């Protein structure tokens, strides 16, 4: 099973260049992951951000507890809050709860994935394979579409209320 899984990761890596630009949705059991996207990074930049909307259509609470990707050493879950004009970013060590029936948006200025220890820069127009780990739903395979720095896909981030409450 593990070997099979690795085979998928390897093949999707080689397909990365040809993958379609548009982020799409991924469904696994009760969990739907919509529009996963990541930001392009510069040469030498060791971290990148990943964003998506996770919906739990099930009757039981779930929790995103982490993930893995062949393109970085580690996948962490972070949150950003604004407090008196100061940005504070923290790692969510216990993961991100996705309550039954709820949708949680990971977006700039709020919850996001951090790809730590990038092995190569994230190139716009490619996709990044990530295996998300949920407490209940288990592993969900997702492709993050890499967008240019100036693209702000699907969210007028600056015109919205940012702070996760």
């Amino acid at each position, binding site marked *: 099973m593990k070997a099979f899984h690795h085979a998928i990761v390897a093949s999707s890596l080689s397909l990365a260049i040809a993958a379609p630009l548009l982020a799409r949705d991924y469904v696994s059991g009760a969990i739907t992951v919509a529009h996963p996207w990541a*930001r392009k990074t510069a040469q030498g930049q060791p971290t990148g951000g990943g964003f998506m909307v996770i919906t739990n259509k099930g009757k039981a609470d779930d929790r995103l507890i982490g993930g893995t990707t062949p393109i970085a050493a580690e996948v962490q879950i972070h949150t950003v809050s604004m407090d008196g004009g100061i940005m*504070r*970013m*923290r790692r969510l060590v216990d993961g991100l709860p996705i309550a039954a029936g709820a949708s949680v948006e990971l977006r700039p200025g709020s919850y996001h994935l951090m790809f730590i220890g990038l092995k190569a820069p994230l190139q716009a127009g490619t996709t990044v394979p990530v295996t998300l780990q949920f407490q209940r739903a288990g592993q969900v395979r997702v492709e993050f579409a890499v967008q240019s*720095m100036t693209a702000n896909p699907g969210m007028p981030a*600056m015109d919205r209320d940012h702070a996760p409450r």
Partner: protein
Amino acid sequence: MRRVDRRIRVGLAALLLAGLAACSSSQPDAPTAFGGPFELTAPDGHTVGSASLKGKPYAIFFGYTRCPDVCPTTLARMARLRKQLGPDGGKFAIVFVSVDPEHDKPEDLGRYVALFGTPVIGLTGDKEHLAQAVKNFGVFYQRVPQPGGDYTIDHTASVYLMDRDGTFVSTIDHDESDQMALAKLKRLIG
């Protein structure tokens, strides 16, 4: 205590914005000299600071390249606003100062600011030079150790608008609309 000081400065900046600038002259400690002299290092190794930036208005922002979030969003927004200004967009400079000199070397900053598709001046400096710039702008930043040995940096998310003489004009705050930000930029270059 020092930290509290910085926070008060940030608060004072907001007061200035609220149209109470006139009051500041009666408060000796108010940041009327917001911006003051500073000298930092550009990606090509040259010194860039308050003296060399003089002559053109600029928008200056403090952050770090490993910030996946507020920093790229803010720089992308400044690039977008500049585009919206059309030919006038070139009438102000965009300056990004890294408060993570341990990780962001001048050449790293050069590569980072090149991602935004518009000229951005990326600066950083050693401890003393950075401390001076940060103090002048009343910027708060603090390294926060994360589980696993890494660190993030809490930092002020406002963009400071400086006129062609290097005098503080206003801030663009993180949660302000593009429309308001654009109006401020128009006033800055007007």
